């Protein structure tokens, strides 16, 4: 419990450091406002359209599989810590779990969805 207090202090300190730094810059920096300066950068061209658009992400299948594997890795952590106590039984239990996931991965691979579509 006490060790997490330190983590909380680190978290607060990180935010404070950024705030203090930006505050110092706010005191020191010059300001010469000009409407042209506020244009988004598009290599010197007059910017057109909005950048916050519906964007076609080409890796959504990866993202779906990622969720599965990320949860899997969280499951493996406690198993890995206790591996020596669990012995042969624990090893084969995890092997079955991994094989099921790998079958899923191989299926996705063969269906050619692990591609940049």
């Amino acid at each position, binding site marked *: 419990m*006490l*060790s*997490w*207090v*330190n*983590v909380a*202090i*680190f*978290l607060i*300190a*990180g*935010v404070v*450091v*950024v*705030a203090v*730094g*930006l505050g*110092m*810059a*706010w005191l*020191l*920096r*010059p*300001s010469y406002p000009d409407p042209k*300066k*506020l*244009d*988004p*950068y*598009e290599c010197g061209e007059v910017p057109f359209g*909005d*950048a*916050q658009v519906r*964007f076609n*992400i080409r*890796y959504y299948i*990866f993202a779906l*599989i*990622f969720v599965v*594997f*990320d949860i899997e*890795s*969280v499951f*493996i*952590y406690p198993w*890995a*810590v*206790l*591996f*020596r106590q669990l012995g*042969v039984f624990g*090893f084969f239990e*995890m*092997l079955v779990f*991994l094989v099921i996931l*790998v079958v899923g*991965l191989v299926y996705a691979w063969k269906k050619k969805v*692990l*591609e*940049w579509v």
Partner: protein
Amino acid sequence: MAALADTWQALLDWYFALPTAILVPIAGLLKVLAVFGWIVINVLILIWLERKFSGRLQSRLGPMRVGRPHGWAQTLADTIKLLVKEDIIPRGVDRWLYVIAPAVVFTPALLVWAVVPFTKNWIVSDLNVALIYVAAAGSLAVLGIFMSGWGSNNKWSLLGAMRAAAQIISYEVPSVLSLMGVVMIAGSLSLQGIVAAQHRVWFIFLQPLGFIIYLISTMAELNRTPFDLTEAESELVAGFNTEYSGLRWAFFFLGEYANLLAASAIAATVFLGGWSGPFLPGIVWFVLKTYFFVILIMWIKWTMPRIRIDQMMEVGWKFLIPAALVNIAITGLVLLVV
């Protein structure tokens, strides 16, 4: 002299007599200050080192003018320049996301240092779930990158942010899985426990495959060449931080180098035995091993070309993840037989 020692002793007595509820936050604050000082000094050194090192690799001299010898004050001068730069928040940005993003990138880099063991006794808090904590804190930075990229309302930034998301979903899993073999051998997630488990042989020799996977996926999470697709100055201008300037931009930069240092320290702790070593004091071993990884990652950065985004995802999913799973199975089998 004796009076001074008495005063000091009285101060210490008074300090340790304080109730725990006050003592712990004060101690925590002092530790934060020490660690923050360590990070800032090292980042100043790292930026200078990176410029000198890349200069050497490209038959240049690197910075020479500001401060003699060898332009040692260059980074200080740059810091002052960034501090007094005009701040521009372009029109159309999502103001909250844009302003908060540097803090979200920088803070996790500081957070990782809460569990890094500098020596046997110098550690801020020896969490029993330290490795999960490191993985969790390390993957927070991408949120800040995405916030900055989306919030900037700039097409380059948007592309950089989307690539950052692609990168984290491809390399988060292998980087976590590659450490699993180490956890199985050490039977502990605490970094001090992992250091103690390496008193006979370093894990780099027991887990060579895990080490290679960890190194590759860590470089991807650090967004360093060959995986610097989120910035990619020759394609995306500056990627997610195109619209940032002055100290806001400096915090991205600071976060990047603090992350590099943190990742090197974790790699040194997990695979090279951390602070343990003969003859020299622990802190010297810790710094030497950390800088070994820093130089290694810099060397790779300035040697390799950038890989394409679809290749990047394929390496992650079709090589690193299967290899990490195989590594877990082999480690388990060997541990059962031995």
